[in-house]
């Protein structure tokens, strides 16, 4: 099989199944009269009507902003605390049971709790998102910081690389693959919490809108919302992967090299 044929085959494999599924959905639902499963044709045609530029600005944008704010807070807090806890064995031993418990609490359950303090505004949603996202980031940072290679650590020490320089050039860089794993998990949790916090109590937002459609039995509209949410999740994960590939280029190269040599 020559090069061009190989490329064509790969392209085919990437596109084939999704295309088949979409077509199957289209035809299976085309003459559907079930109000819960409107024809795909209807859903797609409703899409631009529902998600106008205005609605995107008024609902989707605030959702995304809240997600970003909560995620950013969680990232900063998680990495900072995780570095401290991971660097000192004693601190880790002291914190461990409490952390294990706190991270075991299903994050959506905290929505009613946080609502007590923060009301039902943006602060509440950002707090909810942050409180859920921080755990994977924090725990993964602790693991990453702990696992700094001993030889590398001694090398740094022997060359007088200590303190902030050590943190910057050695610890955080060495832990970054693990930290990114935590950031990735946190992203999926963040999206879930963004939607849930809006379903619970909001006046705008993607989750809020979808629930409004459901309550008002605007089923095709609801479906467009679900599709949009799915699309959002997909796009964010692609963006994340691109960012990760840039930041962790060295790590992927290192792993490939060691895999090849072994």
């Amino acid at each position, binding site marked *: 099989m020559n090069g061009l044929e190989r490329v064509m085959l790969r392209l085919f494999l990437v596109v*084939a199944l*999704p295309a088949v599924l979409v077509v199957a959905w289209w035809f299976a639902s085309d003459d559907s009269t079930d109000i819960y499963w409107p024809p795909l044709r209807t859903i797609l045609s409703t899409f631009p009507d529902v998600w106008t530029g205005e609605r995107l600005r008024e609902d989707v944008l605030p959702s995304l902003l809240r997600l970003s704010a909560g995620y950013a807070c969680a990232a900063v807090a998680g990495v900072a605390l995780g570095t401290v806890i991971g660097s000192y064995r004693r601190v880790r031993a002291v914190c461990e049971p409490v952390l294990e418990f706190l991270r075991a609490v299903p994050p959506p359950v905290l929505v009613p709790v946080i609502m007590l303090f923060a009301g039902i505004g943006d602060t509440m949603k950002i707090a909810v998102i942050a409180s859920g996202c921080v755990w994977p980031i924090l725990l993964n940072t602790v693991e990453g910081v702990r696992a700094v290679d001993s030889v590398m650590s001694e090398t740094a020490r022997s060359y007088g690389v200590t303190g902030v320089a050590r943190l910057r050039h050695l610890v955080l860089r060495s832990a970054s693959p693990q930290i990114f794993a935590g950031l990735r998990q946190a992203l999926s949790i963040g999206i879930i919490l963004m939607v849930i916090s809006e379903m619970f109590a909001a006046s705008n937002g993607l989750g809020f809108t*979808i629930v409004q459609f459901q309550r008002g039995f605007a089923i095709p509209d609801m479906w467009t919302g679900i599709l949009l949410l799915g699309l959002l999740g997909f796009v964010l994960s692609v963006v994340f992967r691109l960012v990760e590939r840039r930041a962790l280029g060295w790590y992927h190269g290192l792993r490939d090299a060691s895999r090849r040599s072994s």
Partner: protein
Amino acid sequence: MRGTNALLGAAGLTAFLALGEAVPRLGLVDEDYFPPTSRIADALATEFADEAFWTALGDTLTGWAIGLTIAVIAGILAGILISVTPYLREATASTIEFLRPIPSVALIPLAVLLYGTELRSVLLLVVYASFWQVLVQVMYGVQDVDPVAEETARSYGLGTWARVRHVLWPTALPYVMTGVRLAAAVALILAVTAELVIGAPGLGARIAVAQTSQAVPEMYALVVVTGLLGLLINVGARTVERRALAWHQSVRGEVAV
């Protein structure tokens, strides 16, 4: 070393609980919004005495267990099928990559419409979310199979099923266990979330009721219960994983030449 760590951990826990007692009492936060540890403990005791609590707990665990089982079986079957059938892995890769990041909560409105507050709406969410965890891990595990072992098995004329049993499964088992562990945690989160948002019977629904009736200490107590439940599941899953893999390692040790 272990002893000191356990002591330090206990100290940390005690300090945390003490803080939880002191901070509201000192007025640093409003007692109504953040009851002291002792009051939460009281509410917890009240809950334990309440039969409805135990029913709710049972409901949550039922949804969790059934959903997890379905997801694990489906995930393992799908994972193995996709991995052993030629070209199926590449063909499904794009679909999986697209469907995986879709937040399960997107299905909540659909679940509400279809099943209302029945168990099935909980199952819809739990199975959807947990399935991906298992599937991804199973596929990692299959990828990890030593090609030499596979070739050897094939040259000895072992059919597909025999190869799955003797080569694929032992290699994939650690990954499957990881997948089950992750799925178990996710299943709990989704079960409780579904109950919280949709109102299906269970701990989540009980929390929602406590919230609307402003029974704050009870709400906190239930949150603690979910945390403990999650903790038990995490620890339990890790223990099962270790046991299963201990057996697995020793078997592998025997078979390895």
